[in-house]
C-alpha cells in the first residue's frame, strides 16, 4: 500500500530533557504514505517522545521533523494546533473522550475546531460512526460504552478531518482481549484503505497484525527496522491483517478516507 511519497521525514533528531540523557539520540526515520509503522520498545526507550515530536506536541533539541510536507519543529503553538487538526489524527490509550459530550459531539470536535460546515461535518460524523459500527451510540455519552466502543469513537474522531497520518499511542493498552482484537482489525482495515498509521505499542500482537513495518527503539535509537513489508514477529494471535474491521464495521472501507 505504501507509495514513494514520505509522510514522515525525521532527520538526526535529538531530544533531551534538562540535563538528563537523550530521550531520542540522533534518530532518523522516513515513513511513506500508506505505511503502517509500529514503534516498539521498552519503557523509556523514546516511543512517546517520538510520537510527541511527530504530532507537534513537543520540539526536538536538534534535527528536523517534517510531516506531510510541514516542518513541524519550526511551528509555533498556533501553527502546531492548526497542523494537528488538519493533518493528524490521534488515538490514545485511554481514549481521551470528553465525558460531557455525546459520541457525535466528540467525533465532531476536530471539524468544529477547523470551522467546517455544520451539515457537512455532521454527515461525515454519521458516515464514520456507521462505518465503525457505533452509529447506534451516536447520542450516548462515552461513559456508557465499552472500552472497545470508546476506542472506536476515538478512531472516528481521529479520522474526522481525513488526516494524512493517524497516530495511535497504545491503542489497545486499556482494552480487554476481545476489544483489542476489534481495534487491531480496525486499524488494519484502515491501513489497507491507504491510511498512513504510526502506532506506538508494547503489544507485539498488535504490531504483527497491523504494521507493515516495525522499528524498535532502545535508549532513543532505532535498533531494529524491518523495513517496508516487514512485520513484527507474530507472537500471540498470529493475525496478520485480516478483515476484522470490515466485519465489525460492516461498511464501506472507503469511508475512512
Amino acid at each position, binding site marked *: 500500500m505504501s507509495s514513494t511519497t514520505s509522510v514522515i521525514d525525521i532527520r538526526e533528531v535529538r531530544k533531551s530533557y534538562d540535563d538528563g540523557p537523550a530521550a531520542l539520540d540522533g534518530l532518523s526515520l522516513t515513513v511513506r504514505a500508506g505505511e503502517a509503522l509500529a514503534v516498539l520498545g521498552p519503557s523509556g526507550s523514546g516511543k512517546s517522545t517520538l510520537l*510527541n515530536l511527530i*504530532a507537534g*506536541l*513537543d520540539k526536538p533539541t536538534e534535527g528536523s521533523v517534517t510531516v506531510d510536507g510541514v516542518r513541524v519543529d519550526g511551528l509555533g*503553538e*498556533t501553527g*502546531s*494546533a*492548526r*497542523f*494537528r*487538526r*488538519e493533518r*493528524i489524527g*490521534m488515538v*490514545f490509550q485511554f481514549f*481521551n473522550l*470528553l*465525558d*460531557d*459530550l*455525546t459520541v457525535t*459531539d466528540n467525533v465532531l*470536535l*476536530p471539524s*468544529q*475546531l*477547523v*470551522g467546517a460546515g455544520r451539515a457537512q461535518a455532521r454527515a461525515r460524523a454519521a458516515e464514520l460512526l456507521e462505518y465503525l459500527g457505533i452509529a447506534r451510540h451516536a447520542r450516548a*455519552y462515552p*461513559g456508557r460504552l465499552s472500552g472497545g466502543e470508546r476506542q472506536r469513537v476515538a478512531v472516528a*474522531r481521529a479520522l474526522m*478531518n481525513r488526516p494524512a497520518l493517524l497516530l495511535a499511542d497504545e491503542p489497545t493498552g486499556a482494552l480487554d482481549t476481545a476489544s483489542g482484537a476489534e481495534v487491531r482489525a480496525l486499524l488494519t482495515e484502515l491501513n489497507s484503505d491507504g491510511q498512513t498509521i504510526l502506532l506506538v505499542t508494547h503489544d507485539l500482537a498488535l504490531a504483527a497484525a497491523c504494521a507493515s513495518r516495525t522499528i524498535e527503539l532502545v535508549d532513543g535509537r532505532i535498533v531494529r527496522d524491518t523495513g517496508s513489508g516487514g512485520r513484527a514477529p507474530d507472537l500471540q494471535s498470529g493475525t496478520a491483517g485480516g478483515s476484522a474491521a470490515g466485519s465489525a464495521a460492516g461498511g464501506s472501507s472507503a469511508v475512512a478516507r
Partner: protein
Amino acid sequence: MSALGKVVRAGVGRRRVQTVVMVLTTMLAVTASIMAGGLVVASQAPFDHAFAKQRGAHLTGRFDGGKATSEQVAATAHLPAVTAAAGPFAVVTATPQFGEGGLVMMIGEAPLTIAGRAAAGGPVDAVTLTKGHWVTGPGQIVLTVPEDGPRMGEVGGTLSFPALPGRPSLTIVGYARSVSRTADAWVAPAEIAALTRPGAAPAYEMLYRFAHAGTGAGMARDKNALAAAVPPGALSGTLSYLTTKHAADRETATFVPFIVAFGVLGLAMSVLIIGIVVSGAVSAGTRRIGVLKSLGLTPGQVGRAYVGQALIPASAGTVLGVVLGNIASVPLLAQASDAYGAAPLTVAWWLDLAVPAGVLALVVASALAPALRAARLRTVQALATGRTPQVGRGRLAARAASRLPLSRALTLGLAGPFARPARSATIWAAVAFGAVGVTFAFGLGSSLSAIQDGVNRHNPGQVSVSTFAPPPVDAGSGAGTDAGPPPPPEPVSADTAAVARTIAAQPGTAGSFGTVEQQATFAGIPGAVRVTAYQGDSSWGGLQMVSGHWLDGSRQIVVGRRFLEATGKHVGDSVTLEGDGRSVAVRVVGEALTVDDDGMHVAADTGSFTALGRTLRPDTYEVHLAPGTDRAGYLQDLNTALKPLGVEGRAQDNRISSTIIAMDTMIAMLTVMLVAVAGLGVLNTVVLDTRERVHDLGVMKALGMAPRQTVAMVVTSVAGIGAVAGLIGVPLGMALHGYVIPAMGSAAGTRIPPADLHVYHPLPVLLLALSGLVIAVAGALLPATWSARTPTATSLRTE
C-alpha cells in the same frame, strides 16, 4: 520533619500558583476588611473619640480684657466644677488677607479668632498639628484646618492684616485642628500685642473641662458659676462643646450610610472570597486526599494536613494584609478626618487583632469542612473523585450550547459552568458583589457630583460683583475686644442701580441678578431665619429644586426640608413673614436642596420684604456670561467700567467641598478594592477549574485547539456567569444607591432632588451591566493564558 509536616510542606510548595493566589486573596481580603472596618469604626462617634484624645474643652469662655484681669480669669480654673483648665490665652479677632508674590486676594469677610498660645499641647484642647510646626516665635501663625473649602495658603505663605496699624504680616508655619474649635489661628502670646488695636485690651480665652458636662443644663450651671467668679459682664461669650458636637455629628451622619454600605460589602466580599478560595483549594485536592488515605493517614490527620496547608499561605497573606490595610487606611482615614473635622483617625488597634483572627478562623472552617468530607470518603471513592466534574452534570447545557451558531471553543466554554454548578455559583456571587460595588460607586459619585452642583448654586454666577467696596485702610481696626464679632469696618456702599446697569450694559453679560442676606422671622418658628433675597431674573441661577418651582414672582419663598418640618407646611402652603410690627403672607412655591443653616435657609424675592417696609438693595450681583465669552477679558472690561462706582467684580469658581472630595476618594479606593477582590476570586476559581480540566484541555489541544481558542473557551466559561452576575448586580447596586443617598440627605437635613438621584441613564446602565463581564474576563484572562501555554504533552500526561 514528621510525615504530616512533609505532606503539608509539599502541598504548599508544589501548588505554587494556588499558594500565591491564596496569599493574595487573604491579603486583599484582610486589607479590605481593615480598610472597611477601620472606616466603620472611625465613623462611630469620631467627634467623641477625637474630643477624648485631644482632651477637648467642654466650654470655651471668652472674657472681656477690659473688665477682668488675667489673674481673675486664671483663678476660674480652681472652681469646684472644673476638672481641668487651660489659659488664659489672649485672643483678638482680625480680618486677614492672604498674599504671595504681590498677588493679594481677599479670603472672605469673616475675621479670624486668633489666640496667643505658646504650645499646642496642654491639659485641655491639645491641638493636633496636621502640617508644619507650632509657632516658635513672633511673625508666625498656625491656621486651623478649614472645615470646608481650600486652605488659606500653603505653609510658608504669608497672611497680612492690612486693616491693622503697621499692616502686620505673618508667615504660615503650620495647620492644626482643634476638635473644640477654640480658635481659627494661633500665634505666639507676644504676637497678640501687634494684632491689637492701640488702646484696646485683648480678650482672654479660657478652656475648661467639667466633671458633669453631658447635658445642656449641666453646662448652663457651669457657665453660671464661671460668670459669678469674675466681675459682672466680664464673661462675654462661651462656646459649649455640645454645639460643636452637634455640628460634627451631623457632618459624620452624612458619611455613615455610605461607609457602612461599602464596609458591609467589603466584609461580605472578604468572607465569600476566602470561603471560595480555601474550600475550592481543598476540594480540588480530593484525589490527593485519597492517595494520602491509601498511605494510611487517618481522617483527622488529613483534616489537620489540609488546614495546615491552607493556614500557611493564609497566615502570610494575613500578615501582609494587616500591613497593607493599615498603610492604605492612612489616606482614607485622613480624608475621613478632614470630612469629620476630627483629629487624625487611625485604625483601631483591636481591628489589627480581630480581623486576622477572624480571617484565620474562617480559613480553618473553610478548609476543615471539605477536608473532613473528603477524608471520610472511602479511599477508592476519593481517588476517583475530584479531577473531573460529576458525570452527567451540564450535559443538557452542553448539547444546547453546541447548537448555537458560535465557534466550538465558545460553545464549550458557555456550557462549562453547568458542569460545576456550585463553583459557578461562587464565581457568580463574587462577580455580582463586584458589580454591585461598581454600580453603587458610580451612582454615589454621580449623585454627589450633582448634589455638589446643586449646593454650588448658592453662588451660581461665573462672575460676582460685591456692591460694597473694601473699607479704607485707616477706617479702623479689625481687632475686637470681646467674644463677639469685632466692630465691622464701615463698608462703602455703591449705587446698586448703577452697578446693575453697568453689568447689564457690559458686552458678554447673558444675565445677572442681585442678592442680599436678611434675617427674618416667620410665624411659628422661634428666632430669626436667614433669608437670601433675590432681585431680578434669577431663573438661570436658582437653587436645585426637590419639588415645586423656583421663584418667579413676588411674595414667594423657596425653602429647605427642615423649614417645612419646623413649620409643618408643604409646598403650596402660605407662611407669614414678620418684621418691624408688620406681616405678609408668602407662599412656599418650592422645596430646594439646601444644607445651609441646618436646612432652615430660605430664598425669597426682595419684593416680599417691601410689604414689611424694608427696601432691600443687593449686596452682591451674580453674573452669567454669554457662551464663548472670555471671562478674564470680560472681568477686565467690567472692572474698568465699575471703577467709578468703587466696586469690582471677581471670578467665581465653584469649589468642591472637602466632604465631597473625601467621599469621592473613599468611593474610588473602596471600589478598586472590591473589584480587585472579585477579580481575584474569579482568578482563583478559574485556576482551580483549569487545573482540574488540564487533561481535557490537553486532549482538545491535541485535537488541534489553538491557544487563542483555548483562551476563548476558558474566558467564555466565566464570561457568561459574569454577564449574568452583572445583570443582577446592577439593579442591586442601584437599589443600594436608592437607599443610601436619601439616607445621607436625611442626615444632612435635606431631601435629595430627583434629578440627583436619577443618575442611572441608559448608557451608563448598559456599561455598568457589562462590569460583571469585565470583572469575570479580567479575572479569567491570566489563568486562561496559562492554560493555553501549558505544553500539550504535559497536559496529556497529567492524571
